[in-house]
Structures are given as structure tokens and as C-alpha cells.
């Protein structure tokens, strides 16, 4: 598969807010009511098309409880986008957003695009955080915002693509130095921007032989 860009995403948020379920819904289009808890980090990948451009997303799904700076720090490295997830039925997961954000700001690329996800929107009857509060928090902190449901799949796709679109926009605005891998962006085949380095070459080769 060829792609124009490859973005690294990271999903963060308290334990049990549904990070892994969001990922599973996005990559496999299914929902697992009881998902194994994540230990350390798990991974997913999918192609999306933004503005007619194939973009590959590589997603790092992190453990919510992981609080070891020495380990989590490196998860952020080279991430172009982040989904910061809370559970609309559990107030405390919303209350912890600030500390997650601080973590991200501290360890991630400053240009990383962050989208706030209020997950479990299907459980509106148990809602403990209003949509407005979420929007407000996002606005104050310069985040994108969506309420989504990993169970129904509502807005899951959008959460990932909206982030990708924003990143793409930033690239076009020249915010990123795409040749620098720490941006979390790799240029794929069919988009020769400047001389392709060794690894880009590898990407190009694979893209070429299979498309």
C-alpha cells in the first residue's frame, strides 16, 4: 500500500475510559464489551484518506495507569497526533484531563495535534460530564473536540480523521518539518519532497511493488 504520509498517533487518558475500544472500533470495526486491560502499550494501524490522499495512521494505545515517566515519556516521542480520552460517565476521568495534558505538553512535540474525546456517548443516561464542559475544556486548551462511542462507533472514525486532517493542514501551512522524524510524520511514496532518505526509500520501494 502506498501512502502520502504516515502519522504516528498516541491515545492517552485514564484507565477504563475506552482507549483500546476506540482503537479496536477504528481498526477492526468491532466492539468488545470487556476489553483486556492494556499493559504498557499496544498498537494498531489503518489507512485513511484525507482530501483524496492516502494516509497511514500508526496508533499507540497506551495503558491508562502507566505513570512511570521514564517509560511513558518515550511513548510520546514522534507522535504527530494524540487522542486524549475521558469517560463522560465518570467525572474523575474528566478531572484528570489537565494532568494528562500537562504530561503531553511536557513530553510530546509541541506541534502535536490533540483531539479530546468524550467517550461512551451512548451512555447518555449516566452522563456525568456535559458536552459543553468538554467543549469548554477543549477550547481553553486549544484542542479539537468530539464526543464518541466506541460501542456504537459513532464519531470514532471522525476522531481519527479529524486529527489527521488537522495535521495535514499543519503540514501544508509549513508548521512541520516533515523530513524530521521527530515530527511523527513520514513522507510516503508518491510524494517526493526533497531527496528521500534511506528509510523513505524503503517505504517508497514497498509502496511501489504493491500498488
Amino acid at each position: 500500500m502506498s501512502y502520502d504520509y504516515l502519522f504516528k498517533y498516541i491515545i492517552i487518558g485514564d484507565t477504563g475510559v475506552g482507549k483500546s475500544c476506540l482503537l479496536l472500533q477504528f481498526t477492526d470495526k468491532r466492539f468488545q464489551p470487556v476489553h483486556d486491560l492494556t499493559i504498557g502499550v499496544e498498537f494498531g494501524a489503518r489507512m485513511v484518506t484525507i482530501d483524496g490522499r492516502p494516509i497511514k495512521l500508526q496508533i499507540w494505545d497506551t495503558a491508562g495507569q502507566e505513570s512511570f515517566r521514564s517509560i511513558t515519556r518515550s511513548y510520546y516521542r514522534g507522535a504527530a497526533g494524540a487522542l486524549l480520552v475521558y469517560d463522560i460517565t465518570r467525572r474523575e476521568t474528566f478531572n484528570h484531563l489537565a494532568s494528562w495534558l500537562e504530561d503531553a505538553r511536557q513530553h510530546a512535540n509541541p506541534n502535536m495535534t490533540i483531539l479530546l474525546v468524550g467517550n461512551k456517548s451512548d451512555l447518555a443516561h449516566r452522563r456525568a460530564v456535559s458536552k459543553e464542559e468538554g467543549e469548554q475544556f477543549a477550547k481553553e486548551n486549544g484542542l479539537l473536540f468530539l464526543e464518541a462511542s466506541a460501542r456504537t462507533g459513532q464519531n470514532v472514525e471522525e476522531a481519527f480523521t479529524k486529527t489527521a486532517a488537522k495535521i495535514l493542514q499543519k503540514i501544508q501551512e509549513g508548521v512541520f518539518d516533515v523530513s524530521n522524524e521527530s515530527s511523527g510524520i513520514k513522507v510516503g511514496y508518491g510524494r517526493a519532497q526533497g531527496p528521500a532518505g534511506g528509510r523513505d526509500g524503503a517505504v517508497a520501494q514497498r509502496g511501489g511493488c504493491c500498488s
Partner: protein
Amino acid sequence: MCQKMEVVLLILSWTILCHKIQAVEILLLPALKHLLLKFSHHQSWIPFKILSCGLPDSMWGRFFRNAELEKMVDQDLTRLYPERGSYFQTSGCQGMLRRILLLWCLRHQEYGYRQGMHELLAPLLYVLHVDVERLSEVRKDYEDHFADKFDGFSYHENDLTYKFEFKKFSEYVGDGSEFEETSVKASSLTELDPVIQTIVLLSDAYGAEGELGIVLSEKFMEHDAYAMFDALMSGAGGVVAMAEFFSPSPYGSSHTGLTPVIEASAAMYHLLSVVDSSLHTHLVELGVEPQYFSLRWLRVLFGREFSLEDLLVIWDEIFARDNKKFNKASDSDAESNSGVLDSPRGAFISAFAVSMILMLRSSLLATENATACLQRLLSFPDDIDLGMLVEKAKSLQALAADAKNSNSLLLHPGLYEGRKLVLSRVHSLPRDSTSPRTPLGVEPESYWEEKWRVLHKEEEHKQGAVEEQGSNIRKRWSERVKLRLSRTESDPSPSKKNQRTQVSKPSSRRSLLEDLARQLGSDDDKENTGCNDVEHRDKVEANGNDVTDKKFSNIPSCVASEENSPNFSDPSSPVHRNGDQGNQSESSSVASNSCIDENEAELGGTNPERPVLRVSDIPDGLASRCTNDDSMGKSASGMKERRSLSGKFNWILKLGRDATEGTSKRPGASKGAKIGNDESGQNNVPDSSSANGCDNSSWTSKGETVDQNLIVSLRNLGHTMLENIQVLESAFEQDRGQMGPQEENGLVGKGQVTAMSALKELRKISNLLSEM
């Protein structure tokens, strides 16, 4: 509701004021506790919570902390093995898990609860559960032999400290305790099946040890599980303490300042670099940091990577190993680095992790970015041959233990230069104590002589007793001699080599052994011209090999598994390869007579049968799968031969490990090569060139006799072809895997289908070729 809340608020504020008054505890009746928890998430409580948490020792502080802990544990327990609902989701099991975890966490506040701990506990409880079930079965059948009436008494009823889900638990416990009258009347204990006998004796409350004689009992199951869990977490006085892997602070006396899990991961990567430097380089270059995957592997001790049944086998292996710290009297400088895996058990864990990585070798080598690589590492295939994996780990264990000694090299990216040098020196080391070309090691050369002597003695001592080991050694030995001789007889035609290069897929990936290969090339040339010194060299090299083998003989399985390494790192199919070995062994033993060596006698009896059997025992599907996996990666990088060489070298390299430290500081790789070249004409101990040549021959010497040359080269061609096909297939597969569900249907076009069918055809052809 509001009124109630006010009351609670009142009580709360009052107790905060006088939190030191112990009498307040009376207020903590379960009902109140429930009420408190119910409202504790209401926003108006936040100030109180903050206030109470600000007083670390306050009862309310503890109360809320413990409530958090309980909530967290409960949340995780409901997610424990959800698919295995049968046992782990029963209320009895959940209750026990919950109590054990809570108690352990409260008693070890420095760790607290960390996700994953429950997955270390669950298998322990499961084992006890299974054993207890078995016990009650036996008890049913052989009731007469169980004189113990103590079990009928439910001790919980009088236990005031017992609070959690008492009813459910006692129901659960009660299930098995009533046994029926229909029991087999065996006249005496001695007539029973020995297994049953043991079970009966182990539960003999009135035996020699009285109540202590009850090793297994339903009512002590939870206690036992706690004790086991505690021992596992704390390491029971040993080195490997699982709790460390959950700890965010640096390990005990470690001067590295790394958290234990990172330190252990680094140790594991180090071992990988020793065993398979090319794979290690690949992973490092992709930016795959070991803790990304080993965090999970280590924390739950491989629990996520295997089914529970397999896991228990692995744990048996792990726990069977001593957990005492290594005695390292010899190396005082490395001593300061007290590793978190610094015991036989730790070494095995490290070795096991590495063999897991090696299992995925080819598929890892085929990946082009960290995420894809990690994805594979964290979705370990569930159809692996566990026995093989364990064998491999056993074989690596000694290396893992040794690797600790050179831990200081851990994070050196430039290791390879030094390594290559060592590599080329390995064979010269044992003999050449005075040579000016090898004055470089930290270890004086006499050290090697001494080591050789010691090993030799051990070997002699062993020989009579351990036939298997002997045969392994002999085989290895003779194989080497054979390979060497045949190489000197019939050097591969250059065209053959070219073929190989052409067949292999061009790749942009860099190959760390390119210059090594260059060395090999020049070596071949030299061989052609310098045949007259072959005999002498063989003799010398025989000694070299001898020492090599002896070192291995200390870890017999190591030898065995290297012989069988096709499954892991040898590019050719195991069956054919072993066929080769079988055919050639006879002539090789004859050939080896030309070597004058004290081990000459051994050579006559060369018997490679055992290893051959071992490999062919492996189920067909698996064997082929392994080879597939394996070969894919290798040819993917277009470096099949070289990689396989490097694999071999790494084994040899290990033997020269101790000298590495010194070497790495010394001249660059180019100098190493130069040494080899300078030496080529001299009737002296072979240096790099012959060391390389020896292994080089393993792929060039297949055409041992002139008659077989053609067939063998065709066969090789077949193998190479097959491997390349597998690479293509894996590339396809990879792409398919990475596409989204929707794209899959749309974008997998006709072209891909035809390509796949073409591949199938090619595969058939290559199968034919390789079966010649």
C-alpha cells in the same frame, strides 16, 4: 437524600477535626462506609477529600485511598481473562483475588496496586484450584484413606476479621467438601497408584507432621495463593522480584538509575545483540525500544503472550531455576552492576524473551517501522512449538548469564565494530598465547589456555558418563572439520555465488555484515592459492574448535539447539539440511583423521543421529512455518547468507565474549580485516580469515563431492527461491494486515490475486528444486 448527606458531611468534618481519635473507627460500619462511598464522588465532597488526603496518616485519607484501591482492583478484576469466564470470573475466584491483592497492596504500600499484578496472581490461584479439585476427586474415590475430618469444619464462621463477600466465598468453598460414601475400598495404601498415594499422603493431617502435613487443602487455598504471590512479588529473598517490574524507582543498588523494567529490557536486548546482532541492529535502527514490548512481557511474566496452559509450562521452567544472585568472583569491575535479572532465573527469563524474539526473527526483519515491528512482538503467534521455545531459552540461558558480565556494553551502539573483531579472533585465541597479532585482549592469553585445560578436564570426566553430550560435541566437531576440508577441496565456483546474489531481492536496508562478506570474498581467493598450509591449519583449528565445543559442552542443550538452529536462524529447510549432514558425516569422519589431535578417537564415532531426529520430530507444519518465517526476513534484506553467517558467528563470538571488552576499545574493523589478510600466507594460527572461512564453508561446501555439486547447487537455488517467495508473500500479507477493513476489499485488486497465484507456481518449482 440531602438530609442524609448533611449528616454524613457533619460526621466527616467532625472526624477530620479529630482524626487521631481511634474511637472514630467505630463509625466505620459497613453501612456507613457504603453511604460514604456513594457520595464520595459528589462534587461537594472534593474539598473534604482534598483536605483529608492532605493529612497522609489521617483515617479519612486512608479511607479514601483504600476506596480508590478497591475500585481500581475491582475494575481490573472484571477484565481478567474475560474470555475465560469459567473460573476467573466466578465470584469465589474474584473474591479471593480481590482480598489477596488488596491485602498485598496494603502491606506493600511502596508498590501499591499496579495493573498487571492480578494477572500474576491469577495463574497461581488457578493452579491451586486445579490441584484442589483433583484432591477432592481423589478424596471421593479413596475416602477411606483420608482420615482427616478437619476439612469439614468451616473456619470462616468464627473469623471476625473476615469481611469481604463472605457468603459467596463460603458457598464456593463448601462445594467440594462433601464427599459421597461411594468410595473405592482399597485394602491398603500401598496398593494404590503411586500418584494417588502421594496425594493421600500429602493430605494426611495425622501423619508424621500432624496438621502441617496437609500440603494442599481447600481451606488454605487463599492463604497459599497469598504466600505464593507474595513470594513471587518479593522474590523470596532472591534476585528476581516481580514487584520490581512495577516499580517506577531505580532498582536497589543499581548505579544506572534506570527503573528495573528498563534495566531488564536492556539486559535482554544485550543478550539479543550477542545472539543475533543483525536482528538487534534492525530493531535498534527502527527505534524499537525494548521496554515497549518487554514491559508487558516482564510485568505479567509472559502471561499475555501465551495461553494459560502454555504459560504454566513456562512458569514451571522459570520457577525451577534458582533465584540466587550469581557469584561473580572473577569480574570485580562488572560486579558493581547488580542487575535485576542477575540470577539463573533472571537469566532464563531474559533468555526466554530473546528466544521469543528470535522466533519472530524473519517477520521482524521484514518490517520497516517501529510500530509494525512492535505490533508483531506484541501479538505473539499462538501456534508456536512451546517445547522448542523453551529449549532455545535453555540454550541461551548460559549466554544470558554470561552476558551479565559485559553488561557495561549495554547501550553502546558501536558494539558491532568490536564484535566483528572478536569474531575474527575467536579461533586464534585458544592457541596463540604469544602471538603478537593477538596481544590485545584484556584477558591475558594464558587465561584461555587455562580455561581450555579446565574445560578439557571436565570434558574427559564427562565423556564416559554423558553419551549424548559426547555425540553432540563430536558431531559438531566433525561437521566443522568436514566443512573445512570440503571447502578446501572444492571451492565454490564464483558463478554460484553470483547466482545467489542475483536471486536475493535487492534491498535498501543496510547490511551490517557487508564488509565481513568482503572479507569472506578475499578469504576464498586466498584459500585457492594457499592450499598447502591447509593441513596445518586444520590441525590448529581443530584445537580451536575443540575448545569451542567444550565450552558448549557445559551447556549441552546449547549445542543441540545450535545444531538444530535451522528452525531459528538457518536459512535452509531443516529436513534437507539434516539430510546433508547425515550424508556427509561419514566422509567427514574419515577426512578428519588427517587432523592430529588428542580428540581423534572421538571422531571415528561421529554420530549425528540425535540432532537429526530431533529436528524431524518437529511437526511438519511447524517446521515449515518456522523456516518460512525465518527465511522471509533474511532474503528480504537480500542478505540471507550473510545473516546466517552472522548468526553462526554470534555463537562463536559468545565464546570470545570475555575478551570483547578489550577488543572493542582497540583498532577499528578495518584493522581486523587487515590482520586477517596479512596473515593469510603464513603457516600460523588462522585469524579472522580462517574463522570466517570455516563458517563460510557451511554454505559453500554443500557440493561436497564433485558428483553432488550440481544437485546440491540446484537444491540451494531452490531454497533461495523459496525464501524469496516467502518474502514476497509476507510483504503481501503485511500490506493486507495494515489496511483498514474497508479498504481491504476495494484495493486488493486483480493484480494482487494474479501475483499471488504466480507466487504459488514459483513455490512449486522451488519445492521441486529443493527436493532434488
